[in-house]
Each structure stands twice: as structure tokens, then as C-alpha cells.
């Protein structure tokens, strides 16, 4: 199978702290991956390295066999955890921004998603609640026909009703040409989406495997497995 993302001995250190330590991963095209682990485990760092916002301390990472750069940014749709919009923006400005910079951005799809997410184009982004902001970020990220979606904690701060909407949107955006990587510690909600999982703790992969196989082998859900692994 073709890999859309792979890393070899990928490490990232912040001062003395090892956020990632010699991580080897292969992410194949056409699947949904979960990178699961507690806060501070290195999940966001891994996504930021793939998005080109961080550079590795050592080791390498490739997206579609290229190092993160202008090309990879054109095929990667990255959803950061934080509110990254410019302060002056209304929702319609954010749509226009994405349309101007991403050739694969489907503005009609975005408008449909906005309706689905119950968001008004005229609203100022600075006045949105945390849940609405999360829905907006996801709407924009998933309205691209990107090869790789990197979703960093898409459910954080989102109420249970909105979580269901978000999961429906993720499923809707997924097709066999795209790959989705979701980082989260809210396993219960995303478990049903995942084809393959990585458990990441203290910068290292401590467990990985096909989600279905792991469920069968351990005779428990991924959520229960997560509890077992990280409580021990």
C-alpha cells in the first residue's frame, strides 16, 4: 500500500523535554487513523511536524514522499486545536481566505457544511463560542478535497450534540482517496471511525495496530484498552 505519511526515527525536543522520541510511523492512503494518548504525550507535536509548523530535532518525516513544504501544505488539511483565525474575520472572510489559498477548497461544500453545523456566514469569529468555533474549524478543514486531513483534538470543548455532528462530518468528508489522522484523548466518540490506532505516550508509540484486530484480540473496546494501557 502507498503511504501518505511516514516518519523514521522522528524526534522533537523542547529544551530538555522529549516531546517525540524516535517515532516510526506509516500512514497508508485511504484509511482513518487515530493517534491516541494523554495530554502531553506528543500527539499535537507529531501533527505540527507533519503540517510543517515544527521542524524535527532529528529523524525525518515525509508527506506523499516529500518533506513538509509548500507542496505538502497544498495537499494537507490541518486542523489545529487553537483558534488560529485572524481577529478581524467573519465566517465569510474565512471562507474567502480558504478559497483564495487552497485550490482544493470546495466553497459550496463549505456552505452546505455551515448550514449543517448551524453557523451563519455573517457572524464574527471572535464572537463565536468554543463549540461553534470548533465546528467552524472543522467545516473549513473538511471542505477541502485534501489528500491528508490532520485533525488535532477536533472534539475538545465540544458539547455532546455537536460531537455527533462533527463525527458525521468527518465520515462525510472521508473517501478512499483521502486519509484522516485524528489526535484525541476522547476515544469513546471517535472509536467507531478508526481503522488503525497508535497509542502515544511520553513521545513514544507504546501500542499500535488495526482497530478491529485489537478489539478482537483484547476482547474489549479501544476506549477500554486505552483506559487499561494508560492507567497501568
Amino acid at each position, binding site marked *: 500500500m502507498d503511504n501518505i505519511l511516514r516518519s523514521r526515527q522522528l524526534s522533537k*525536543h*523542547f*529544551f530538555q523535554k522529549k516531546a517525540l522520541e524516535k517515532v516510526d510511523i506509516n500512514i497508508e492512503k485511504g484509511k482513518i487513523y487515530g493517534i491516541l494518548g494523554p495530554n502531553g504525550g506528543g500527539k499535537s507535536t507529531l501533527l505540527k511536524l507533519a*503540517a*510543517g*509548523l*515544527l*521542524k524535527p*530535532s532529528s529523524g525525518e518525516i515525509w508527506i506523499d514522499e516529500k518533506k513538509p*513544504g*509548500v*507542496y505538502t*501544505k*497544498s495537499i*494537507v488539511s*490541518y486542523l*489545529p486545536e*487553537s*483558534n*488560529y*483565525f*485572524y*481577529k*478581524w474575520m467573519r465566517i465569510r*472572510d474565512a471562507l474567502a*481566505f480558504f478559497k*483564495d*489559498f*487552497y485550490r482544493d477548497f470546495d466553497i459550496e461544500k463549505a456552505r452546505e457544511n455551515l448550514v449543517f453545523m448551524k453557523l451563519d456566514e455573517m457572524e464574527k469569529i471572535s464572537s463565536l463560542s468554543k463549540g461553534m468555533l470548533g465546528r467552524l474549524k472543522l467545516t473549513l478543514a473538511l471542505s477541502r478535497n485534501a489528500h491528508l486531513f490532520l485533525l488535532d483534538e477536533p472534539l475538545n470543548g465540544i458539547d455532546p450534540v455537536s460531537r455527533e455532528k462533527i463525527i458525521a462530518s468527518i465520515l462525510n468528508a472521508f473517501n478512499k482517496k483521502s486519509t484522516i489522522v485524528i489526535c484525541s484523548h476522547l476515544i469513546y466518540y471517535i472509536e467507531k471511525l478508526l481503522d488503525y490506532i497508535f497509542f502515544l505516550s511520553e513521545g513514544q508509540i507504546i501500542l499500535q495496530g488495526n482497530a478491529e484486530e485489537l478489539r478482537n484480540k483484547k476482547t474489549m473496546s479501544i476506549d477500554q484498552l486505552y483506559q487499561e494501557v494508560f492507567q497501568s
Partner: protein
Amino acid sequence: MMSLLKYEIYRRWKWLVIRYAALITLGVIFYNRTVVAPMQYEIAAASMGKFILVSIVVFVIIIVEGINMLKEDLFEQSGYLTFTIPRSGKSILFSKISLLFLQLTFWTIICFQFGKMFFSKLPLKEISQITSQIDFPFFPSILFIMTAFFNFVLMVHFSITLTKTLLYNKKYSGIISVGIFFLLAYLIEKFYYGPFASQIQHVYIEINNTSDMSMLSAGYTSVFMNVILSVIFFSATAYLLENKINI
């Protein structure tokens, strides 16, 4: 590139409008004082002085904003938006510098026009006597000042970028980058402009050549030296933004 420039303008259009509207409005107010009090040269000079003060304040704001344009994206979360779009570091930096250039050009045009209007209200005879005594290459001097400020902004951009690139994991990256800025300023003064300035001095003393031509050529050479430095700092900053960024 135009899209990037468009969003740089969008981000701060209100302040841009306020800034230039204030400069023009105050210019008109001060100029009107000279119109209602013709031949009262003290009033004309005072009004002109106030306009110069206002224009300096606006100029400082433009320069500070020119620095902040990159600083915001490097140190605030909006950087996640700016630095994940598929554009090169060169394009991103160029859009910011282009806006600075446009602002300085606009500022120069406004100040130049008001300058001409104020001068027309001063005693023509005395003014022409003063100007005839000053051997001052006006155009290269303006160019030199403009390029010097570009250099300054690009040097600051370079130093700021260091904190989020090569110095990212250093404990005192902020202080170190400030130190690097001053070190660069010192080195440029000592080894780049210094020898050139002493060469010019030498020519004046030894040959006693103070013709317009030599002044002009010295002025344009200084501008050229500034442009070279600007290109170096621009390329270095763009390279760091493209290849070494950690935000």
C-alpha cells in the same frame, strides 16, 4: 502574492484609513492656519513644524507596524493560518514588505505635497537664499533614508525570525536575538558602511572634490549598498521561514 498582500491589507485596513485620514486632515488644518494668516511667517513655520511632528509620528507607527506584521504571525496563533497555506516563506515575507513599501510611498507622497504647500507660504526670498546655500542631494537622500528604514525593518524581521527558528530551543532566545540585532548593526557600521564613509571623506579631503556629481554618486552608492543589505536580510529571513520555522 497578491492574495497575501490583499489579506495583509484586510487585516489592518481600518488602521490604515485612520492613519492616513488623520495625517491628511491635520495637514489641511495646519495649512488652513497659514491661509487665514497670510504673510505671518511665524504662524506658517509653527504650522509646518506641527505637521512635521505629526508626519514623524505616523512614520514611526508605519515602521512599528512593519515589524509587527511578521511578529504577530510568529508569536500569535494566527501563524497557524499563515504558515500552513501553500506559499513560500519568500512570498509571505514579500507581501509584508510590499505593504510596508506601499505605506511608506503613500506617506512620502502626502508629506511631499504638504511640504510644497507649506513652503509656498514661507518667505520666498529667504527660502531661496537658504536653499541655494545648501548643497544637498535631495533625491538620493530620500532614497537613502527609505532604504535605510527597509534595512532596519528587515534586520528586525531577521532577528525576530531567529527566535522561532535557529534559536528556538535556546533558553534566552529573545535576549540573544536582540543581542544579534545590535551585533549585526555594529558589524555593518564598522565593516560595511565604515570603510565606504572613510573613503568618501578621504576623497573630499585629498582631492577637495565637493562637486554635485561626487555627492550624487556617493548618495546613490549608499542607496545601492542599502539595497544589497536588504536583499541579504530578506533572503535569509525568507529561507528561515521556509525551512526552519518552529511555531
